[in-house]
């Protein structure tokens, strides 16, 4: 693919830059390659020739246009350009149209038969439509050329993350693994514990203050029933055993107070 920058010469011939397109069909042979590559195929080349000669495509002088088309083709061949098959197919088609126009119609009864040029005209028209559409598309205001997305940095860097989901089974699996490993170390003893005591220990610790004493009885909630009371009691005992709590009682049978150890 040739890259033709906007303001750079269209072609260089013997080192001389060509800034303008050749005014007529004559093209310096060295520039032809660039020139021909600019065509988007045989239909494009045909349209160019038609425009160049200001022809009515409904009334294409097939003989003349075919001659010119073939001239280009032979030039391409001389220059050993890779001649795409499409150009040759078009040449054959033009030749066929020309021959059908030359031959007298042997069956005048079937005069309804289409002008052999009709299909060529239809295709030229159709292709021309999309040439126009491409131009219209190109002239639409578009990003990066006419419009620019307004985009600014944010002060805060990293995006919020949605934390990953965790299932209870994952937790249990993890625990099983870690306990199995701990077993291997053999130094740690995994006790079977009543979870609710452990939970209550955390709750008690939370409720207690390190500075002020809390009445022992305030930790119990009657609505929890006997089990709840027992669990809380066990939790307090365990916390005392782990020396996380401080217990105070002024005298026997006086209210008991608890506070977190500092």
């Amino acid at each position, binding site marked *: 693919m040739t890259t033709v920058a906007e303001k750079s010469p269209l072609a260089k011939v013997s080192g001389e830059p060509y800034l303008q397109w050749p005014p007529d069909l004559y093209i310096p042979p060295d520039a032809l390659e660039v020139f021909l590559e600019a065509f988007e195929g045989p239909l494009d080349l045909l349209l160019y020739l038609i425009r160049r000669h200001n022809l009515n495509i409904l009334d294409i002088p097939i003989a003349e246009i075919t001659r010119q088309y073939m001239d280009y083709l032979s030039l391409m061949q001389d220059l050993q350009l890779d001649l795409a098959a499409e150009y040759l197919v078009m040449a054959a088609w033009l030749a066929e149209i020309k021959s059908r126009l030359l031959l007298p119609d042997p069956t005048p009864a079937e005069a309804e038969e289409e002008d052999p040029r009709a299909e060529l005209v239809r295709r030229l028209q159709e292709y021309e*439509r999309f040439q126009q559409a491409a131009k219209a598309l190109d002239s639409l205001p578009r990003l990066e050329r006419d419009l620019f997305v307004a985009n600014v940095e944010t002060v805060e860097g990293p995006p919020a993350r949605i934390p990953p989901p965790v299932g209870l089974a994952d937790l249990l699996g993890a625990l099983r693994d870690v306990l199995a490993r701990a077993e291997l170390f053999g130094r740690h003893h995994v006790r079977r514990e009543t979870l609710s005591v452990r939970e209550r220990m955390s709750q008690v610790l939370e409720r207690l203050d390190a500075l002020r004493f809390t009445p022992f009885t305030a930790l119990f909630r009657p609505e929890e029933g006997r089990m709840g009371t027992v669990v809380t009691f066990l939790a307090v005992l365990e916390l005392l055993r782990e020396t996380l709590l401080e217990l105070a009682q002024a005298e026997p049978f006086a209210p008991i107070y608890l506070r977190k150890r500092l």
Partner: protein
Amino acid sequence: MPELIAIIEAVLLAAGEPLSLERLSGVFPEAERPEREVLRTALSELAIACAGRGVELVEVAGGFRLQVPQAFSPWVSRLWEERAAHYSRALLETLALIAYRQPITRGEIEAVRGVSLSSSIMKTLQERDWIKVVGHREVPGRPALYATTHTFLDYFNLKSLSDLPPLVAAREPEIIGAEVDLHAQANPPALSGDTRMESSS
């Protein structure tokens, strides 16, 4: 707490891409999520507030976007050394065919253009996320059917395909021949804006 219209502006500016109403309302915690109508009203207020400024609010296929209006492109484009990408005629013709005739197969594109389609063009169009395969034609070989994307519409500042310039009817044959010759002097038809892009992207 900042005003709703300022929040919308901030979010659109930070996004740098069109945001749908859904995504816009998704930035509010559920308890504070404005009604769609409230959001729409705020958006129109923001659009009005942009008047005379260096930014405009547009609705394109992908949603709402703040962009620098075309009137400023002379200054903005001087910001970068490189010129904006120009697309080859081959690419634009192919894109036009896909846009107006979608869904369309590669063979159908080639039939209209009369030339085989370089795969680099299709690659560029797909890399830019302008076209996508939407199905296959049930004929031998099951060729892929191509259509344009939201991104294509967004890039060309369009809200929907119906905003494309109308496809001209096949033109009067005399016009095709005549008009273009004038053109040919200044600006040969074979080559308007032909900086090739396909292979780079």
